[in-house]
């Protein structure tokens, strides 16, 4: 098992109630798998999971990307800067 630190932004932070959380994941877990874990733990994420975006080490990551050990993971809604 790896311990990963996850950063949350905007609505997702509100839904989870925290800026950062830590989770135990097994080696080989993908972004998709991590999203399942999060949605199970924080049910309010379920309705937005299709629009959630993920980043691994500050780069956009696809659902099938494997979470590397020690990586910086972030989840956030579609960006709205400008």
């Amino acid at each position, binding site marked *: 098992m790896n311990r990963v630190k996850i950063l949350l932004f905007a609505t997702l932070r509100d839904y989870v109630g925290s800026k950062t959380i830590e989770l135990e994941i097994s080696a080989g877990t993908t972004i998709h798998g991590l999203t399942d874990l999060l949605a199970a733990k924080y049910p309010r994420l379920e309705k937005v999971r299709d629009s959630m975006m993920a*980043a691994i080490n500050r780069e956009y990551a696809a659902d099938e990307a494997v979470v590397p050990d020690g990586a910086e993971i*972030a989840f*956030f*809604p*579609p*960006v*709205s*800067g400008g």
Partner: protein
Amino acid sequence: MNYPTIISITEEKLDLDALLAQVTLPSTGASVVFTGIVRGLTTRGAAHATSHLDYEAYQPMAEEKMRQVADEMRQKWPDLQGIAIIQRVGRLAAGTPTTVIACTTAHRDTGVFEAARYGIDRLKEIVPVWKKEVGPDGEFWVEGDHHPKLDR
């Protein structure tokens, strides 16, 4: 040639004249500065009033993505000279400039307008910044409609 690329996420007030000077080279003849501004009154879509916006960034990733936007601009418009991409964050009142895309060229017909337009479009697509709107009817997060995951 060493062309300036200025990337910044800041809580400070924007200073357009100082910024322009930073992207002006001896061979610069034209600049375009796009500025996004907090709209106090919106009529497109659901009409509403806004007293201010709270901006939040995933700062290190946002800086990397702003740099990517600048790189893309240079790749598409090789005559670009200076580029500045600034995102102001924090609580910003209606009427306040929030974002700047500034670029310079020797002449106005070598992509300076097109590059600035591209820059703000890309910033709104890929730079992880969010805003929460606060108005007389309460507050809510504004969400973009672009999903970079689907682009790749």
